[in-house]
């Protein structure tokens, strides 16, 4: 009896050891010499966010691999250092510290949720390193050490609402979101924006649901009820992650068609649709700065490389992947211009760098560390892809401090010298104001 007990606990111990070993190999830097430049990749590979972030790790590995094939950077090879913050916000900060202090990386590409970004922000500022953040977010932030390559609200939410207002003649709005900072801030901006356009308070319904909400019956019924008041109604969805699948399934089951009540989503891309039967969703909308279905030579090339790299013909591409593509190429260009990977010099060289994006134009890094992007609106097709129905004629510059919120409308960010400030108040003429 005793021996079996021992072997079983040995077994558990061995298992635990194995797991630790696996983690350790992920985290340990390869025997590094000075002839490589290290690039940190800080994306969750386990836990709730793995569903979205694993793809971004893969795309970074692909980009680094390609750069190395082209001869590396400054005559050195790039070396990716992958860590797994396991969807655990405090662990993000720990892992970021480890990447910068122990692995001595030159830049980090990572984070998905705003809370993970907020968690690592002090680490990057304290240790003075660079973070590329590739996801659309709520704005109201600008840090010297962070480059925001995803969309600010004015590059996604506001143009989407404009489209619905002009093309679909929507007069009544449901703002539905998951209950955390990104949807709450975005909805606050949208509410102010809609009111500035003359929409009455009774024509706006705001609804929040917990993370991973799975029973959408009564909310979808409420939306149907709200939409049957004789005015054209649309749903603006900031519902995040896993909750989307049951939401769309319920919409399909209750027969809410895009012709009657269109749903425009800011967090649903090709990857999220891969888990749903899209036939009932035909015509529902999404607003992004990139869709896989965009027909440009650069995009065709990117998709081909991605499928070859992942050895999977069914893998899809999405918007945050393009953001990393842009961010990585910008960093490469800035390092080449600065002639060093020294963060201070690279940060200064970043502003003004312009690289091709995948939608047939150029994206440039602005002094507020956000970038210029086109805004695309797409309708869901039966094959799980989006059909682009609207594209802004020019590029939209990212606006970090929203003009529609009273707390931030007077703030701007400009990291060029001599201003070098992330929250400059144009009213008082001083650096430092509300919001940050």
């Amino acid at each position, binding site marked *: 009896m005793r021996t079996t007990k021992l072997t079983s606990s040995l077994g558990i111990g061995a298992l635990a050891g194995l797991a630790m070993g696996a983690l350790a190999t992920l985290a340990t830097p390869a025997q590094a010499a000075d002839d490589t430049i290290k690039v940190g990749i800080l994306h969750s590979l386990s836990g709730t966010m793995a*569903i979205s972030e694993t793809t971004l790790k893969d795309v970074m590995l692909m980009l680094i691999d390609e750069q190395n094939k082209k001869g590396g950077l400054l005559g050195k090879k790039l070396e990716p250092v992958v860590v797994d913050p396991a969807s655990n916000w405090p662990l993000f900060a720990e892992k970021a510290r480890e990447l910068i202090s122990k692995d001595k990386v030159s830049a980090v590409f990572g984070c998905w949720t705003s809370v993970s970004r907020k968690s690592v922000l002090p680490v990057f500022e304290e240790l003075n390193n660079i973070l590329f953040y590739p996801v659309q977010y709520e704005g109201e932030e600008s840090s010297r050490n962070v480059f925001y390559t995803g969309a600010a609200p004015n590059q996604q939410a506001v143009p989407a609402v404009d489209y619905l207002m002009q093309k679909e003649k929507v007069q009544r709005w449901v703002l539905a979101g998951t209950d955390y900072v990104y949807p709450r801030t975005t909805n606050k901006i949208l509410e102010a924006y809609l009111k500035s356009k003359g929409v009455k308070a009774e024509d706006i319904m705001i609804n929040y649901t917990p993370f991973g909400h799975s029973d959408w019956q009564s909310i979808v019924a409420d939306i149907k009820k709200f939409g049957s008041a*004789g005015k054209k109604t649309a749903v603006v969805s900031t519902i995040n992650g896993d909750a989307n699948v049951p939401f769309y399934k319920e919409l399909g089951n209750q027969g809410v068609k895009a012709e009657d009540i269109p749903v425009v989503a800011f967090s649903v891309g090709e990857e999220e649709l891969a888990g749903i039967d899209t036939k009932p969703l035909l015509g529902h909308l999404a607003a992004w700065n990139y869709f896989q279905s965009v027909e440009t030579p650069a995009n065709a090339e990117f998709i081909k490389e991605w499928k070859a790299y992942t050895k999977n013909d069914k893998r899809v591409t999405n918007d945050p992947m393009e953001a990393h593509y842009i961010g990585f190429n910008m960093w490469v260009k800035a390092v080449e211009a600065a002639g060093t990977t020294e963060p201070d010099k690279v940060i200064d060289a970043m502003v003004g760098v312009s690289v091709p994006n995948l939608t047939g134009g150029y994206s440039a890094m602005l002094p507020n560390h956000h970038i210029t992007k086109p805004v695309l609106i797409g309708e869901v097709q039966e094959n799980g892809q989006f059909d682009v129905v609207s594209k802004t004629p020019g590029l939209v510059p990212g606006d970090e401090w929203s003009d529609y919120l009273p707390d931030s409308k007077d703030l701007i960010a400009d990291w060029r010298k001599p201003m070098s400030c992330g929250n400059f108040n144009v009213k008082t003429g001083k650096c430092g104001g509300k919001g940050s």
Partner: protein
Amino acid sequence: MRRALRWLMAVCVVVATSTAAFAADLRPIVQSLGSGGYSGTEKALEQLSEAGDPAAVPVIEALQAGDLQVRKSDNAVVIARKAGDAFALTDPLSGADLGQAAAADLTRIRINNSLRRAISATLGALTLMSPDAGVRRSAADAVFKSRDANALATLETAIAKEQDKGVRAAMEQARAAVLLTGAAAATMPDADVQAAVDTLAARGDRDALVLLNMVAASGASEATKKSAASAIATVEQKLALWGALQNLWYGLSLGSVLLLAAIGLAVTFGVMGVINMAHGEMVMIGAYTTFLVQEFFRAHAPGLFDLSILVALPAAFIVSGGVGIIIERSVIRWLYGRPLETLLATWGLSLALQQAVRSIFGPTNREVGAPSWMSGAFELGGLTITYGRLWIVVFAFAVFAALLAALKRTWFGLSIRAVTQNRPMANAMGIRTARVDALTFGLGSGIAGLAGVALSQIDNVSPNLGQGYILDSFMVVVFGGVGNLWGTLVGALTLGTMNKFLEPYAGAVLGKILVLVFIILFIQRRPRGLFALKGRAVEA
């Protein structure tokens, strides 16, 4: 009198224009569907609607299905349907065979939401005279929705000829909607408005309410307005009643999902007393088994796809139950009587299982399809009931009944009860308690697997599936009374209904918090839950 005359004239004009347009050749209009982008297509569609010629129906249906394409060589609009690697082309109007073309030689005429709307409106107006009653019915509904003035003349003729009572009612409602929203609405004679109000009051749903509100706010006579107002009051009362019933149904449906998720835990935690944090992962394994079974059906027997769920049920029970038995034999049996260590060990196991599934199947969601008998919804009076939810409710009660019967009426159930009530005595009577423990844990896990099959229909099939249900399951079991299956049933239904009645008032987030607060207070009053076990069994 003058008003009536003017009204008559308006009708005449509509009829005259539509008959005149009948003569127009459709070909140039169909040709123009393919040029000018969305707005060009929309304009051509409008012309087709004005022409009012049913010959255009197959063309519009092809446009809706995405089969209408433009041949690049001569810009001709053709119907192209997939035939092997290439497309078979036919003429949209005559249906003549135009040979084949490769995908690269064709451009699909793209449609967006506003076009889709225009298509269903036009199709509605053009199919009002169809020989098929079902088609006429949906045509009338489409016109009701689109309020297309072009359809009025056809609608009048169709009503005069209609034999089917239900379809005629739908057509009359459509006519009322068109008249009330049309350009001539302000000058309509009172009697007509009154007739329209009566028709709509009989319809009595939310769409009717919109139109009635319009009448009540319009320049109609006082008497008409008054009758509209009383119709509104009746309709609203009716809707409120149906709304409450609908909430009850939602509560029942959420309750049955909770029941399914919790009932396996009622066995492992309730009967055996094992705090099994990996219970959610058993549900998740059941869902992934469903995915694998469906993949098998997709690859080998796509025709039998509708049966895949039925095959998945025993498969999920066996797989999850098997994993459960392995877990019991390898980990849990060493930890009986040490709840804290059990909790930590099973929690670790749940993380390990999640990561294992993530490594094997990838972190992204897997698509589990709904069989045709589980998709869509039907109307029952004012209730909308989705088939998927209905089957889950039925299934949850079936599982509950089966488990109850297994525990009360079989030898195995008797052994489980004997072991949990008095282990040394059961042992002395020759029951192999260790084996019963393993099988009981397997039973609870297998039932969790069954829940996974049902949940795969309404939730994500991802490694995190189980996490969302573990907390709710414990809540249900503790609330209902540990060790009592009936308590689990009543607990699940109570919490489900309470959640759904709170949600419309308090919102989903606050609703959940309120339910949690209620349970905490309740447990303070009755620490053993709704149905506490009494007698010696409690101490054992």
